[in-house]
């Protein structure tokens, strides 16, 4: 077993080819089971690229991160508590608008994101063209067009991952502009969030979730032992998860 240095989370709407990409990247080096205490399938695997070992976790497919279901809670908690080094959001090129909703939500939680636009071949057939460079500029994170099924774009994706972990990329994620009313409430709530929840979590996002009345987030935060040092390895629970 490889001692993985970096953790990658795979996210995306259902039916975007997320698992296809997962299989292409990991081959047979996968473990599957359940998330502790949940009836949600957990799959993770490993791969090595340019001498660096990666652990990759295939999160359940979700449309949002609003903790509507066990799937969404698992995905949210992983981003929040396990803090993967890179999150790859797989989107369906033929339904980009709907898929971007999730991307925008992920960008509120972390800036270490690569957007993988999958099914690009199908989109071409339907006459849909996506200006990925422009999209990357707008989103403020790398965007990679690909077709996981035909193994197209995999190499570019891996190069982007490599550039990320070598600190060659400087993401400046887009912030969704909310209504004046919401923005004011966020501004008022932020100091209290920072005071109580601490700096370890994306404060703006936490504030937004609290305004939305997301009690499941609070109880998740409450169960989490307070982080003592910022240097703590973000993938510390790696072993325990695997052994499940």
């Amino acid at each position, binding site marked *: 077993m490889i001692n993985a240095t970096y953790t990658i989370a795979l996210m995306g709407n259902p039916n975007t080819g997320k698992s296809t990409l997962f299989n292409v990247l990991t081959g047979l080096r996968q473990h599957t089971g359940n998330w502790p205490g949940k009836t949600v399938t957990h799959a993770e695997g490993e791969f090595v690229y340019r001498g660096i070992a990666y652990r990759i976790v295939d999160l359940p497919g979700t*449309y*949002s991160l*609003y903790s*509507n*279901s*066990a799937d969404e809670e698992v995905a949210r908690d992983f981003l929040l508590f396990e803090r993967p080094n890179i999150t790859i959001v797989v989107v369906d090129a*033929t339904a*980009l*608008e*709907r898929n*971007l*909703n999730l991307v*925008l*939500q992920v960008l509120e939680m972390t800036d270490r994101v690569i957007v993988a636009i999958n099914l690009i071949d199908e989109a071409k057939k*339907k*006459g*849909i*063209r*996506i*200006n*990925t460079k*422009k*999209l990357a500029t*707008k*989103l403020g994170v790398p965007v990679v067009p690909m077709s996981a099924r035909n193994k197209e774009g995999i190499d570019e994706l891996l190069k982007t991952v490599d550039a990320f972990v070598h600190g060659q990329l400087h993401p400046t994620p*887009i912030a*969704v*502009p*909310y*209504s004046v*009313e*919401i923005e004011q*409430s966020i501004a*008022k*709530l932020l100091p*209290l*969030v920072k005071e*109580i*929840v601490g700096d370890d979590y994306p404060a703006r996002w936490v*504030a*937004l979730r*609290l*305004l*939305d*009345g997301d*009690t499941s987030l*609070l109880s998740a*935060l*409450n169960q989490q032992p*307070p982080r003592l040092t910022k240097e703590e390895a973000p993938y510390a629970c790696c072993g325990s998860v695997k052994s499940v």
Partner: protein
Amino acid sequence: MHVADRSNLFDRLMEEAQSLAPADTREQIVTAIFQTSAALCRETVTNAPKAAKDHTLQIDRIVTSRRWGFVIMLAMLAAVLYMTIAGANVLSESLAHLFGWVEQYLTLLFQAVHAPHWLYGLLVLGLYRGTAWVVSVMLPPMAIFFPVFALLENYGYLPRVAFNLDRLFKKAGAHGKQALTMAMGFGCNAAAVISTRIIESPRERTLAILTNSFVPCNGRWPTLILLSSLFMAAGYTGSWNTLVTAAVVVAMVLFGIIVTLTVSWVLSKTALRGIPTHYTLELPPYRRPKIAETVIRATLDKTWYVLKRAVTVAAPAGVITWVLGNVPIGDTTALSAFAGWLDPFAKTIGLDGYILMAFLLGLPANEIVLPVLLMGYLSAGALTEIDSLHSLKHIFLAHGWTWLTALNMMLFSLLHYPCGTTLVNIYKETKSTKWTFVAFALPTAIAVAVTFTTARLARWLGLV
């Protein structure tokens, strides 16, 4: 102690957040995200002009709009029912003629072989006449309604219906997906109860299960359509008659949906308290269905299935009711004794003993309520030859029916307890005797209350 402190702090944080949050926070958040996604796509995505998705999007802009969504939905339903009723009238007449013509020869045959009177009564007046009535009354509306409905379904219109209704269900404290399971209920409540598995939250799922039988299923459409066309539009002629009939059935469906929403709302405020969860509903692209195939499938699968169920149950029921109707108990028959026993209660809710008996005997399947009722009436002496639908109305009139009786039977049919199959499924899905009982008792109570009120109100207002 440390943990307790954290808990308190978190509670304070949540309180603070809730005092700051606008009432429609979720709507505002989702709107902002959707608008940002849309703006990003406008700048980075170009569609080929002839893309099929565009076409879907344009239609959806109209049929799921706040302004037109409901109008179009009602218009569609009315149009489907209008076609059904207009076509069924013609077909039913011809079928009734055909069966009446065949019966003459059957009678001649029985006379020619000098069959005993009881055998003639049992086979021709009981079995044949009962079955013939059921077929000529139920087959035509089903043969038109189901294929047309299936075409609409296969075009992809039903998810749009769910999309439109989603708002209402959320307001009622229920899950938006309940709109989908309700739409399934228009086909079959038993299947719809199983389909509530798509709702994850047990609270919202129970709501969907308990209220599912308030929309008419395959077994009840023919009853609604027939009674409406016989009694509700009596004062009108020609296409006005059809239009009014269709309008009454649409009103029935609307009323069923209103009851669904009201019951959901009341339950979500009382026994099943909670906040509705959100979900994403994918609207599939519109597809032109294979028309011939859809029509044939619908006819074979649904029409034939419902008719077969009605006839296989109705035929023996015809024999049994004929026998019961001719077995003397004192100076009356077993059948009229039972109906007579039910009569006082039935009258207070604007029905009569035979109707209530039909509903009770119809517990296994709603399809047989109308057949059992006809058999009951026919065996009670008012023997009517099948020659036209008018004679069907005469059967009802001979038993003291008014438009109010018809209306109350339609209401009772719409609101009463789910059929046996559905109840079994509810038990299997909830694994709870309590909820199964509620699923039986709640609609029954509502049906009795509504018909009682209607009957009282109509009499009080002097309408009957």
